[in-house]
């Protein structure tokens, strides 16, 4: 496929088209992804998550600039939420990264979550594969982290950076959000604000209490992104974490888990699509729905019979 060759030679338009094709599940997308798969596995995938307004985009901008100084190429996937009501989205992460627009070693793509639960765009997996096969050294996935989505990102990234800021609440917030289990590197951004030290101490305490503490010593880094404070240290930690993953065998384990999730996700999606289309085609579903609403049938019996019929 010509587009795949072009993309692998670094043609921005071809890369962008391929991501759209896979995002929209258009014809040809599957074939392209198959062709690209053998070239994947070389990029270091870094997830950045944290609450809205914690400065993820600005931090990403600075981290990428630091990596560029070190001659590395970077693909950035900036994921923002899609409205569940209209299907529309405002993708505003480029605002903080606009001077990376013209850097030939950087590719930025904004993605809406398009209704998939978990905050990670439906096609993020595909986009990561495409950027990986196109030879980017690093792939950053930036996502609004609220609850479940933070857990989802860890399934896609090799290294997950959790960004927090002072003033969000007490240490109970950190325990309940499940943030601690997913982070490999913790960044306290806007550290020039009051309370930054307290956040660091609370994080340290929480991490010490973590019973399954592996040999990786979780860094907690204070940053002030617009002033570039703590940025070099964060980049060093990202590299150090990758070396640790490689040497400990953890990288292979994580990638195996990631592939497992990815395959299950794809199977689930395609089954759901197959089923929904089948039901719509048969046109019987509306009648069944009427029966349920009129209490002639119940939803659980209907689900069981649909599944039995489909999976037979």
């Amino acid at each position, binding site marked *: 496929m010509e587009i795949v060759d072009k993309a692998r030679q670094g043609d921005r*338009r071809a890369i962008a088209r391929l991501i759209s094709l896979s995002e929209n599940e258009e014809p040809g997308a599957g074939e392209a992804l198959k062709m690209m798969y053998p070239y994947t596995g070389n990029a270091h995938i870094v997830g950045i998550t944290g609450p809205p307004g914690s400065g993820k985009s600005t931090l990403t901008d600075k981290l990428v600039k630091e990596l560029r100084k070190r001659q590395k190429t970077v693909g950035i996937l900036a994921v923002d939420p899609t409205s569940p009501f209209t299907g*529309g989205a405002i*993708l505003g992460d480029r*605002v903080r990264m*606009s001077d990376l627009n013209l850097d030939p070693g950087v590719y*930025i*793509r904004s993605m809406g979550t398009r209704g998939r639960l978990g905050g990670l765009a439906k096609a993020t997996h595909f986009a990561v594969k495409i950027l990986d096969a196109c030879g980017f050294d690093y792939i950053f996935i930036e996502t609004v982290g609220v609850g479940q989505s933070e857990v989802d990102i860890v399934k896609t990234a090799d290294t997950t950076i959790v960004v927090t800021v002072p003033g969000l609440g007490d240490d109970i917030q950190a325990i309940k959000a499940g943030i601690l289990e997913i982070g490999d590197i913790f960044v306290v951004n806007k550290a020039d604000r009051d309370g930054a030290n307290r956040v660091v101490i609370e994080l340290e305490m929480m991490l010490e209490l973590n019973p399954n503490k592996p040999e990786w010593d979780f860094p907690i880094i204070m940053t002030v992104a617009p002033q570039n404070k703590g940025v070099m240290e964060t980049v060093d930690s990202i590299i150090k974490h990758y070396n640790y993953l490689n040497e400990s065998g953890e990288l292979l384990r994580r990638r195996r888990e990631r592939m497992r999730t990815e395959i299950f996700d794809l199977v689930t999606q395609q089954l759901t699509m197959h089923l929904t289309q089948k039901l719509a085609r048969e046109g019987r579903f509306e009648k069944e729905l009427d029966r349920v609403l009129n209490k002639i049938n119940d939803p659980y019996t209907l689900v069981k019979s649909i599944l039995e019929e489909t999976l037979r």
Partner: protein
Amino acid sequence: MTEKRIRVLVAKPGLDGHDRGAKVIARALRDAGMEVIYSGLRQTPEQIAAAAVQEDVDVVAMSLLSGAHNHLFPKVVQLLKEKGMDDVLVVGGGVIPDSDIPFLKEKGVSEIFTPGTPTSTVIEFIKNNVKKAVL
């Protein structure tokens, strides 16, 4: 489950710092179910064209109040063409005198929306004129 969306780059070329209008449009397009990428202020035509390519947008919507539209809008159209994005719908808005509109259209800007245009007009125009095969 194929969810194709119209992707729009809302961009602010040039040096004016007024993006209230751009944000109103961005929000209206979002509420019409589009994916809106907002560029931020003070973008060069080169930055806008690069963002349009990377984001693979269907529409570039520019807002400009500085008076430099006759220079900047055609420049963006030209750069998009050079990058092979000749199927992108380009529209503009802002404080633009009626007498400049024919020139801008001749240069490849499909429509100009002046102050007071209802957002529904912009939405309809985009939906009816998107050149790429969307839905």
